[in-house]
């Protein structure tokens, strides 16, 4: 789950990290009032859950409240990478001398958090890693001990932070690490971390992504969850216990188990088609499950055929087949279905499906080929 910059900054400020004075605004009037209250040049920044706001014109500097008003008018309502801007953050413009990078995330290979510090700030850290790998200092604190003072000191020395900023940057690193831990973040990032002309250090931007699996113990953060239009179906699916990801093809996919569904998408691609979605129904695949999964997949107007790939394990293939048959009888779908059953009692399941108005195939490859073929046929009137 992603937080907005202004939300992340509030959490940083709570942990004692210096941030610029700022206010949130949802109208041009509010933005003007915010700039007046700040009483200095401000930056008006779109609050959307995507990167690259600056390049897309979502950040404007305003020298007066009137300019802040115009900036907010221009930014509010614009679309950045398909997301509509509903809020702007109006904050005092910093007197920037240099930009640093500071971030904490997971190092999967080492199974430890990794703290990264660089004097090349303001850029995507992956680009820095590509172009100037030696410009990133890394440290791997023990998850049992946290980022210790000597580790933070080592980082500022290794990154080549100027003498005057060493102590404040090391201090901010430790505070950011505590935010990372306390919020169950998967990413806590200050980029850029400004060094101002007077030598003070300030969080220019802030990014905080929260581990969805930890939301049960982060009730305050869970409340901040925003569901964009794009994610509505994913949320609806999640409520049903499914895992759904929208893709851009036309073959709808339903399967049980994440790995099997991924393999099914790949089978569709191998057959020359493109999957419209990823949908993992999880354990079991009885009638109700199949029906709600079909509803979700068919809500996507691009879907031209649906491939159901179920491995009968603890849930037997014949039970799955009965579930699918009931759905087809009571709620005939608007596009052709292809079903492939494997595993326990798959043959019994296939026998049950023999007379039904749907394509049944024995192997994943054949079923994918058939679903792709059907997706390219003209739609029946």
């Amino acid at each position, binding site marked *: 789950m992603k937080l907005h910059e202004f939300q992340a900054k509030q959490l940083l400020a709570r942990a004692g990290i210096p941030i610029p004075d700022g206010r949130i605004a949802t109208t041009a009037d509010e933005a003007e009032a915010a700039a007046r209250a700040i009483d200095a040049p401000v930056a008006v920044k779109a609050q959307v859950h995507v990167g690259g706001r600056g390049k897309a014109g979502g950040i404007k500097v305003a020298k007066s409240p009137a300019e802040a008003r115009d900036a907010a008018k221009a930014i509010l309502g614009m679309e950045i990478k398909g997301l509509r801007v509903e809020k702007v953050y109006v904050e005092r413009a910093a007197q920037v001398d240099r930009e640093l990078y500071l971030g904490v995330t997971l190092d*999967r290979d080492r199974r430890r958090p990794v703290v990264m510090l660089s004097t090349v700030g303001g850029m995507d850290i992956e680009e820095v890693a590509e172009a100037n790998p030696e410009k990133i200092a890394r440290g791997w604190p023990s998850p*049992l001990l946290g980022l210790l003072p000597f580790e933070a000191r080592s980082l500022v020395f290794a990154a080549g932070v100027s003498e005057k900023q060493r102590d404040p940057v090391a201090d901010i690193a430790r505070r950011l690490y505590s935010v990372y831990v306390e919020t169950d973040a998967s990413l806590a990032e200050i980029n850029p971390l400004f060094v101002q002309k007077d030598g003070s250090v300030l969080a220019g931007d802030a990014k905080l992504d929260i581990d969805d699996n930890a939301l049960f113990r982060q009730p305050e953060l869970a409340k901040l969850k925003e569901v964009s239009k794009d994610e509505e179906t994913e949320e609806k699916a999640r409520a049903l216990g499914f895992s759904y990801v929208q893709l851009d093809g036309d073959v709808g996919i339903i399967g*049980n188990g994440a790995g099997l*569904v991924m*393999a099914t998408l*790949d089978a569709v*691609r191998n057959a020359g088609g493109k999957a419209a979605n990823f949908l993992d129904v999880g354990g079991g695949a009885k009638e109700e499950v199949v029906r709600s999964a079909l509803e979700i997949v068919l809500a996507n107007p691009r879907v031209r055929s649906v491939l159901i790939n179920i491995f009968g394990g603890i849930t037997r293939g014949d039970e799955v087949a009965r579930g699918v048959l009931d759905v087809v009888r009571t709620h005939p779908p608007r596009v052709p279905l292809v079903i492939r059953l494997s595993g*326990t009692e798959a043959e019994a399941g296939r026998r049950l499906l023999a007379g039904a108005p749907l394509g049944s195939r024995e*192997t994943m490859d054949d079923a994918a080929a058939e679903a792709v073929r059907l997706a390219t046929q003209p739609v029946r009137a």
Partner: protein
Amino acid sequence: MSVLLDRDTRVLVQGLGREGSFHAARMRDYGTKVVGATKPGKGGTTQDGIPLFDTVAEAVDSTDANTSIVFVPAPYAMDAMLEAIDAGIDLVIAITEGVPVADMLKVTAVLETATTILVGPNGPGAITPGQAKVGIMPAENFSPGGVGFVSRSGTLTYEIADLLTRAGLGQSTCIGVGGDPVIGLPTPDAVRLLNEDPATEAIVIVGEIGGSAEERAAEYMRAEGKKPAVAFIAGRSAPPGKRMGHAGAIVSGNQGTAESKVRAFEEAGIPVANAPSEIPGLVKRALRR
């Protein structure tokens, strides 16, 4: 021979709820020795004929359990895993899905100083066909033999085990390492166990997008491989930045792509199947049958 579990495996169930008791019964049906379960406050009683204990330590004292299987819900899973590690259990298999990453970082940090092997979480468990099953996989799809099998997924594992079994390729031990980004026994470590197991003649490695465990497994096999291996990577058509069901199945930036994994295996001389259906043929060819 086999790895991780065999006829002498003595299993303790942590979390004998609906799912736990269902699978405990199926493990017993398979012949696995289920010697006890923990249920704080119910120690000294039994449930479905399984003796209950208040703590893992007591259960180990009374039953000589050497393995535990964890079904407890995600908020309590870290505690359950740490309790089993603290009690000196040799093998902990965690089925629980949805454990926070921060909890797994703590658990794996503790594992560094312990002798316990943790498999999972968010996996189907492990099975040594014909000897013991400590997990939730449907046993019918597995058969005894010489193919060692490591996988990050559940149903895809059953599917491939079924394909292997139908092709006459039985399995030594199948290890479902789990679909989370931080797990106890990552793919390369599981591959190492099978590489060093005399009963394993060939290794099937089923990976998916996200992380670089497959790349490390390929590197390990290139340097130390004693037997042929075949790989499959799920998610070759998945777009970057999207989590494909498993918490760990995500391409972040240029990290964790299927291309990188396929290339790593090919460079290590390990053939990569384009579809699960190709795996048995590739294994047979690798074994030169």
